[in-house]
């Protein structure tokens, strides 16, 4: 009945699809990636950058599980910057601007080098199920029937995608690409709850027409810090960006033409992201601001297209031209492609299990923008986890691959999605993690690579590098705990500590603001000999330890709640004291534990108390 079979089919070659396919294949599943066109695999359809604050954390976590994104970005990066460098290591975010073409090529090369992964340039047209409703395969537009134990759908904004440029509407996924109508129909037959979101992109400019000389240049870090811990050094030539800003003339022009913007003209119903507002939004909502900053980011070394970051718009093309001309440095700039808003369907992620598998359709996984997120990194992190779990389904009885909120931003992302759903495109922010001080971008490997090894998705190179790093950190920590001085000795060295007679270890004093790096090296001569990453890890642990210890009691309570399971068969109408509204909210999100019930939006402390009472009663009954 099938023309061909494999273990896992991944539909879509974007950031989620690439990670999903590669992750499933790394776990030993025979995997097939289906996409419209092989050449666009790994396309960066919006801004040409990977990482940032929160997003950089996700990239490092993907890397820690041996995913591809960080390595591709390092191979393509032309401008690297560690954001929040003046703040502590927990909130620093590595970011790289990439050459768009190099990124595609790097991603495609990584996929080609992945054993057990095949790529096929055919659109998925339909899904196949067995009589029990379990997925068994897909049908392509060419009529090919492919059998699979698990299918991951990563179609981004392709579901009923519609582009708006002023009054014009173009049905499409990305510019020049057809939306997947057939697949949308087969998904709608599943009766999944769909809703609409929108996002936007700025016009692209011809770099040769920009007056660079008159603009403030923004240089990347030197030396650049790679995104992947496997990358020794960045080989590409590095380029500068430039900074400019809108003017009162820009704002006046936008106000005068607001009715022609697709969003403000009322032609778009979907909700847009608050943290990535269009320039129309910024001018309307913050009317008192005289200027809005714009970063001019080159799209490549050989490509002179420039991405003006900060002016996403859905105004008509001729207004966009006037808008660009009102900006210093861009007076004579030519638009290569107009900006646009795109509206698309997404699936309410509350219909997913924490494995990203549809609750009602075993074996069918969704990952990426289709789940209501925005951003390459958010998509890739979901893709990776969906790929791991899809490989599990194909393999039989392995336990689910789930990261908790305490372990990873990836865990925060998926927990937020499946429990809370989304009201705007979901973007990762460090504020979303209650364990922010413990989840650093630079300790992603220490946090996750052992998990990845146990799951079988980490290759030999990384395993060896991880083992070396872990041992070096353990050595350094042991040394920093056992080497110390008395207060008198610290005072003699010119370091002010409480003269309470208590001996203090190096680890305790490393975080003291009074201890300068020079003093530290004088007191502890072994410090300068540590490899830089090991020393940074030591200093970060020293910095946050007092806070993490203070919170540990509170976290233990949270953990206990987190471990109190809510039976998946629990009928919330049986829980005494829950209002109809609370019952509905809980039934929609189906939290797996009492802790996660507390994160369902709108759940009152009273409802939680009622649920806790019910669960404890049930516990007593069974033991």
């Amino acid at each position, binding site marked *: 009945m099938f023309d061909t079979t494999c273990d896992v089919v991944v539909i879509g070659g974007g950031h989620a699809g690439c990670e999903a396919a590669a992750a499933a294949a790394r776990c030993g599943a025979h995997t097939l990636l289906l996409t419209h066109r092989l050449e666009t695999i790994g396309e960066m359809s919006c*801004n040409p950058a990977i990482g940032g*604050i*929160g997003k950089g954390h996700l990239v490092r976590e993907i890397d820690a599980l041996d995913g591809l994104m960080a390595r591709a970005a390092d191979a393509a990066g032309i401008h690297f910057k560690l*954001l*929040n460098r003046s*703040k*502590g290591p*927990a*909130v620093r975010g590595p970011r790289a601007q990439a050459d768009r073409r190099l990124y595609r090529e790097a991603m495609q090369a990584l996929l080609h080098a992945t054993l057990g992964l095949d790529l096929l340039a055919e659109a998925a047209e339909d899904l196949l199920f067995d009589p029990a409703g379990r997925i068994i395969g897909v049908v392509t537009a060419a009529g090919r029937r492919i059998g699979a134990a698990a299918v991951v759908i990563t179609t981004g904004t392709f579901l009923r995608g519609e582009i708006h440029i002023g009054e014009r509407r173009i049905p499409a996924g990305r510019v020049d690409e057809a939306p997947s109508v057939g697949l949308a129909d087969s998904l709608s037959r599943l009766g999944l709850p769909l809703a609409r979101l929108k996002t936007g992109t700025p016009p692209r400019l011809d770099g040769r027409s920009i007056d660079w000389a008159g603009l403030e240049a923004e240089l990347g870090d030197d030396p650049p810090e790679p995104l992947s811990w496997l990358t020794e050094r960045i080989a590409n030539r590095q380029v500068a960006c430039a900074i400019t800003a809108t003017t009162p003339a820009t704002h006046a022009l936008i106000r005068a033409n607001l009715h022609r913007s697709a969003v403000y003209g009322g032609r778009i119903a979907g909700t847009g*992201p*608050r*943290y*990535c*507002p269009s320039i129309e939004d*910024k001018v309307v*909502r*913050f009317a008192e*601001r005289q200027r*809005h*900053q714009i*970063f001019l980011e080159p799209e490549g070394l050989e490509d002179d297209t420039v991405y003006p*970051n*900060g002016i*996403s718009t859905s105004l008509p093309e001729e207004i966009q031209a006037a808008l660009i001309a009102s900006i210093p440095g861009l007076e004579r700039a030519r638009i290569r492609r107009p900006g646009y808003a795109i509206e698309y369907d997404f699936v309410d992620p509350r219909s997913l299990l924490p494995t990203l598998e549809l609750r009602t359709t075993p074996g069918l996984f969704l990952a990426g923008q289709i789940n209501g997120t925005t951003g390459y990194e958010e998509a890739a992190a979901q893709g990776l986890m969906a790929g791991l779990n899809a490989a599990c389904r194909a393999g039989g009885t392995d336990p689910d691959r789930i990261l908790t909120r305490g372990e990873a931003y990836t865990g925060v992302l998926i927990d937020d999605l499946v429990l*809370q759903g989304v009201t705007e495109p979901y973007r990762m*922010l*460090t*504020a*979303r993690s*209650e364990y*922010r*001080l413990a989840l650093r971008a630079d300790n992603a490997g220490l946090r996750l690579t052992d998990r990845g090894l146990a799951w079988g998705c980490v290759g030999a190179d990384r395993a060896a590098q991880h083992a070396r790093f872990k041992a070096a950190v353990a050595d350094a920590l042991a040394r920093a705990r056992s080497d110390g001085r008395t207060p008198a000795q610290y005072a003699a060295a010119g370091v002010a500590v409480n003269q309470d007679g208590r001996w203090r270890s190096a680890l305790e004093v490393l975080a003291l*603001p009074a201890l300068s790096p020079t003093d530290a090296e004088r007191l502890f001569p072994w410090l300068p000999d540590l490899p830089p990453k090991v020393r940074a890890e030591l200093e970060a642990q020293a*910095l946050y330890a007092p*806070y993490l210890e*203070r*919170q540990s009691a*509170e976290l233990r309570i949270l953990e206990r709640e987190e471990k109190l399971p809510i039976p998946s068969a629990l009928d919330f109408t049986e829980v*005494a*004291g*829950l*209002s*109809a509204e*609370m019952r509905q909210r809980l039934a929609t999100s189906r939290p797996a534990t009492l802790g996660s019930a*507390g*994160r369902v*939006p709108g759940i*009152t*402390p*009273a*409802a939680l*108390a*009622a649920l806790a009472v019910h669960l404890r009663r049930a516990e007593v009954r069974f033991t």
Partner: protein
Amino acid sequence: MHEDVIFALASGAGRAAVAVLRLSGRNTGAVVEVLAGRLPPPRHASLRRLRHGGELLDRALVLWFPGPASYTGEDSAELHLHGGPAILAGVAEALVAAGARPAEPGEFTRRAFLNGKLDLTAAEGIADLIAAETAGQRRQALRQAGGALASLYGDWTMRLTALLARQEAFIEFEEEDLPADLDDAVATAAAALRAEIAGHLADGGRGERLREGLHIAILGAPNAGKSSLLNALVGREAAIVSARAGTTRDVVEARLDLGGVPVTLADTAGLRDATDEIEVEGIRRARRRAEEADLLLLLFAADREPDAETLAWRRPEALVVLSKSDLGAALPGLGGLPVSARTGEGLPALRARLEAEALARAGATGETLLTRPRHRAALQDALAWLDTLPTAALPELRAEALRAALRAIGRITGRVGVEAVLDVVFGEFCIGK
């Protein structure tokens, strides 16, 4: 909504002109219909005949409160019956036959809480209101039940959320041109909030004392007249009085209302070097009670030299009283209020003085006071985190302190989610590209 219908006497027990029975639960309407025929219009008092098995039980006022606009949030009703145990018993029997059951203690309030009609502090206020003995306690409980504490803590929560949002914006959007003085603004506002919470905590425990009552212990040598004074103050023979020294062996307690403050007055064994095993234990208990008391009354009989044992207890929270003032003159250098339990001399002055002391320590001042140790512990935790702010060298550490303070206050009233913080971030700053 709870399926089962509960009922309870809402008015006081015993014989009375009117007795009010309250019902709550999903099937309340059906239960009332069994007894009273059709339901009256919502929230209208209607006169109905109540019947059970064809027998007329009473002619009663029936009120029908369909949920959720009711005290418990569920369908509820009130039956205003003629007072009298027989009628009550008959109606209760009829209600049980119709499927209702007597409520457990506090069950109405618990249902109101579970249905989201009250937050935790309001529910605690209702419990206190029911248990209030004095007018001062009642006023405080009323304020709390009305949400005064909830709105005070709610205000702090809102301000902490706004502070955290500013700190988060500073962390999250490095490349944006945010106001340069953001960190200073956060520090200033946090210091102001810290001072308010500290002020609320530094109320000397007035609210908790008003809720729990003030403890006053009477201390003095044997036969100084402690038991007589206790009896005179409470106006009844609470303690045994005799001329024999050492009559009071254990602590004798009596309750009284001093200006709205509930007071427990404790008479104790006389202080002396005793050999009798029981008396020794009594004196040990007297000392312990004195240590725990909010206020001490040190009694010296006017006809004797002051004893060293009692003199040793003089301290700011001790009031010197000269008992048996009908038997001698004031002792030079000791000061104190002359009182005679026998003649009544000085008693009004002592009572006035005690009332003033009680009000000073536990009076309801009209401000919103801390009423429970649970709240105090949470606020102290919040304060401890705010105290780390000035020395926290990095923005993420300051954010952590603000988050922990928010969580601590959230333990009193409810939780604060990330979304609330992000709402402020995106509402206040133009960020994102």
